């Protein structure tokens, strides 16, 4: 292994490591007689005016964005957040059972729908009000948006795998589907036509 290969090795190790590495640790990966200090110094020199620099922190080495470009990283800090488990489940229920009312969702999930879940799903532009059901109180029904389809790579809501397919794919262990389907038949209100929602909702 010549010096060039040694240098490439150190470069790759530092890049792939999830923590700063000491010269000693790096040296362990190199053949006997390698001059690790020299390799590090050369690499540092090579990266000196590039977009990333090789820096020594507390006696260990790591790659870091050049300080003058750090603003780039801060500028776009739009970290994606994780949806709560309840929210994912609510989204799943809405997508499979739409159009559904709040009460439907609660009936299906068996727990009351905490405030903020629907708001979150609507803010994410995955769920939208669809209309009003022609039943007492004329509750608002919810369904999924086009953006939902785009996000999950679906052409239409009919492309969601059915229960049989979920089971076949191994998602539903030891569950009797025919029984599930029966239970789902109590999905009320499917026959009632939806009323269009007024624009101020």
């Amino acid at each position, binding site marked *: 292994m010549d010096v060039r290969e040694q240098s490439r090795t150190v470069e*790759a190790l530092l890049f792939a490591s999830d923590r700063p590495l000491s010269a000693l640790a790096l040296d362990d990966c190199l053949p006997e007689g390698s001059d690790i200090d020299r390799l590090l110094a050369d690499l540092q020199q090579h990266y000196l005016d590039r977009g990333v620099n090789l820096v020594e922190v507390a006696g260990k080495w790591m790659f870091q964005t050049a300080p003058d470009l750090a603003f780039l990283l801060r500028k776009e800090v739009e970290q994606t957040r994780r949806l709560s488990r309840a929210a994912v489940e609510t989204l799943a229920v809405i997508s*499979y059972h739409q159009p559904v009312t709040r009460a439907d969702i609660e009936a299906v999930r068996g727990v009351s729908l905490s405030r903020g879940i629907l708001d*979150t799903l609507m*803010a994410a532009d995955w769920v939208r009000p669809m209309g009003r059901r022609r039943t007492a109180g004329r509750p608002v029904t919810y369904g999924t948006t086009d953006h939902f389809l785009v996000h999950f790579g679906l052409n239409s809501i009919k492309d969601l795998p059915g229960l049989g397919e*979920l089971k076949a794919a191994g998602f539903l*262990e030891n569950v009797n589907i025919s029984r599930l389907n029966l239970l789902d038949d109590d999905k009320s209100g499917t026959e009632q036509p939806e009323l269009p929602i007024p624009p101020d909702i």
Partner: protein
Amino acid sequence: MTVRDTGQYSVFDDDPAPVGSPGDDENLVVDIDGFEGPLDVLLALARSQKVDLKQISILELVQQFLDFVAAAKLHRLEKAADYLVMAAWLAYLKSRLLLPEENIEEEYSAGEMAARLSFHLQRLNAMRRVAATLMSHNQLGRDVFARGRPEPVIVTTVTSGYEVSFYQLLRAYADHKTRKAVADIRIHQRDIYSLDQALDRLRGLIGDVPDWTDLFQFIPESVIDAKMTRSVKAGLFTASLEMTRGGSAEIIQKQMFGPVFIRKRDRKD
């Protein structure tokens, strides 16, 4: 020889793998579990002919498979109906291959059937080869690595503040269904004749009857349904025991499975 699926993936291309060295048929030890179905066996057998898959002798292959199944029968073939069906089909193909063509008026000639089988084997073989190639490709996190210490920046044309994969969505729905399957146990309300009903009826009627009476005479006439009748009988019997225990009646049964008679009893007796 024995073949075991270790669950590990190996680069099996050009391995003379599963069926073992050709020629030691006499020592053929068969472990069906080592194979993923009959096509897998056939491919392994075909490979053992050590010729281009396009040139394999279907007849010889068929015979080898039938031998394989015959040997496997001694073991646990009942687990593998597919093998038997395939064997039946191959036996049929073999007979067709041996018979002169002109005597047969069927949709497909033996040659076509053989070609079709050969095509399937070639395709499976080809898929296995590319599968092996694919797995030997550089894999991220195995052969090549992304930045190990990424700096927290996400440069995307931000579409949504939330990250949920399709898998997570399906998983959530499936988990919900699984939980629901456990939670939603509905017990149908059953029509039963309660002990209280039976007691009321017996107490009300027993005074009117002077002597030993068959307990089942007290079954209300309105009860015709067989299931309900059973429930009423059980209720009345329990009630009669209850009343006997309380001293307000006595019961007698003269023979096994015979009728139970009941009569009112005075405490003073």
